[in-house]
């Protein structure tokens, strides 16, 4: 298969999988307990790494930009710079990348080993649709939890920025907070929450598809895990660009 055909084929497969998840929502049986279990695993389980990532990203942003802002005499706007870049871009993207590394690999490894040990076939043979039982709970949990994780990362990022600004650069905390509050608009927030919704679909769709299409034993499981993480990370970043462009034109975010 040439690369273009292969790409289109994979795109079709992921699309069909997500379509299966969507149409499955309106059919019984529903595996609500499975969804909740996945939400716990994906959401609560990823919270520590997402918070750490957010906190230190916010901190390093201030660390690197504060001297420059000071040089131009606009260091009172430091809070705005960290809040806007976190909420619009870094929060959603870094959260999605951390989650795709942690959860994308877990999903594809788990589904992949189920495929090679014939558990998926067994499941189908026992009359259960694996898309409903395995794929849908994971994709739904990702779509629901990723925006929430993003919010947590944003908040901790701003806190991290504030901590660095006040302890290293001796900025008054009120100045920082005021500049954050003046800097962000509701459109920033909406735009920043639309992205993780799509990223959840991207990570869930790609990881589940890679896991379910595993072939070739344990080596195959390793390969599909690599592919799941690499592809979902790349597609998160590519999607981010186009989503940013779309949000800019629709909501007018980022055009001053």
């Amino acid at each position, binding site marked *: 298969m040439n690369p273009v055909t292969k790409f289109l084929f994979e795109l079709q497969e992921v699309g069909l999988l997500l379509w299966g998840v969507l149409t499955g929502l309106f059919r019984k049986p529903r595996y609500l307990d499975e969804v909740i279990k996945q939400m716990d695993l994906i959401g609560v389980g990823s919270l520590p790494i997402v918070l750490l990532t957010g906190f230190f990203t916010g901190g390093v942003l201030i660390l690197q930009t504060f001297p420059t802002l000071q040089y131009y005499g606009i260091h009172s706007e430091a809070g705005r710079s960290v809040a806007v870049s976190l909420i619009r871009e870094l929060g959603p993207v870094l959260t999605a990348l951390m989650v795709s590394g942690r959860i994308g690999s877990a999903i594809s490894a788990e589904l992949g080993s189920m495929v090679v040990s014939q*558990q998926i*076939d*067994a*499941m189908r*043979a026992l009359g259960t649709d694996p898309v409903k039982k395995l794929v849908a709970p994971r994709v739904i949990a990702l779509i629901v939890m990723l925006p929430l994780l993003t919010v947590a990362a944003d908040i901790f990022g701003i806190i991290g920025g504030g901590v660095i600004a006040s302890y290293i650069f001796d900025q008054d905390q009120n100045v920082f907070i005021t500049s954050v509050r003046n800097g962000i608009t509701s459109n920033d927030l909406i735009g920043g929450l639309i992205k993780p919704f799509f990223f959840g679909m991207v990570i869930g769709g790609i990881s589940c598809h890679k896991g379910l299409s595993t072939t070739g034993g344990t080596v195959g499981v390793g390969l599909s895990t690599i592919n799941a993480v690499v592809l979902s990370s790349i597609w998160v970043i590519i999607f981010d660009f186009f989503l940013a462009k779309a949000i800019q034109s629709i909501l007018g975010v980022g055009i001053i």
Partner: protein
Amino acid sequence: MQPTISSEKDLRGPLVNPDQVELRDLDEAVDEPDRVVPGIEFRDVYLSFDDRQILNGISFTVRRGETKLILGRSGGGKSTIIRLILGLLKPDAGQILIDGEDITPYTEQEMMPVRQKIGMVFQEGALFDSLSVYENVAYRLREQGVDEDEIGQEVRRMLQFVALEDAIEKMPIELSGGMRRRVGIARALIGDPQIVLFDEPTAGLDPPTARTICELAIKLRDLQDVSSIFVTHEMNNLRYLSSEYAVIDEQGHVVFEKEGEKLCLINTEVIMLRDGEIVFSGSDEQLQSCRDPYIQRFIHGK
């Protein structure tokens, strides 16, 4: 009434003494029109992967209460036949009928009720390793929304059937290969499916365990009137399944008797596959006396 063999009886397997076992009247059974409909029927089925022809015009039927042994070398399309019956694969051409119902055009959704009639024993057991033995065996009934008390009863009954009641709380990872295979059988048999498919259930097991699994298959065939397909490449399995039958003795125990003057087994037939084609179909006696050099080599391993 002594167990006898008659031309009508072949539809229901070797007889046990009717005083001891609950069996419906023979004549009534023969008159049942749906007994004439085979459990499984393949009509001229073709299948290829990429440019490799896997099945090349396969046709056969498995009647009610009959066991079909499918012999053939590894990679010869034996497991493919089983996957086709379950609708996990679709044929390129031809028809597959389950209980007279053509499943070839069925979608995944439409296959679900058909699959509930079929029990499948996978090569390596294929147990869900995140679930305990109890949950594995209960899986099918839980999915059907059966009452939990009833599920518990059924699970215990099935585990008793495969002699594994003690393992009920264990996880699959704690079990030996043979035990895992038996849990797989219990999981396949819950809900009393009328069709059971065995995909090399004895591969890689020690002879006594392999024998136990064959005995389970014989019990299903003779005592529960199940249609089954038994894919294997081990000649021992063929010997057990085609020469012994299960009866219930006066104490209510299941005993296995050798085929002999009293009874001749006619509910077990053999198919041999070679390069996606059926090269032999008939009883095991016919197989033994077959002159074909390929078959002779397969049987005697030289």
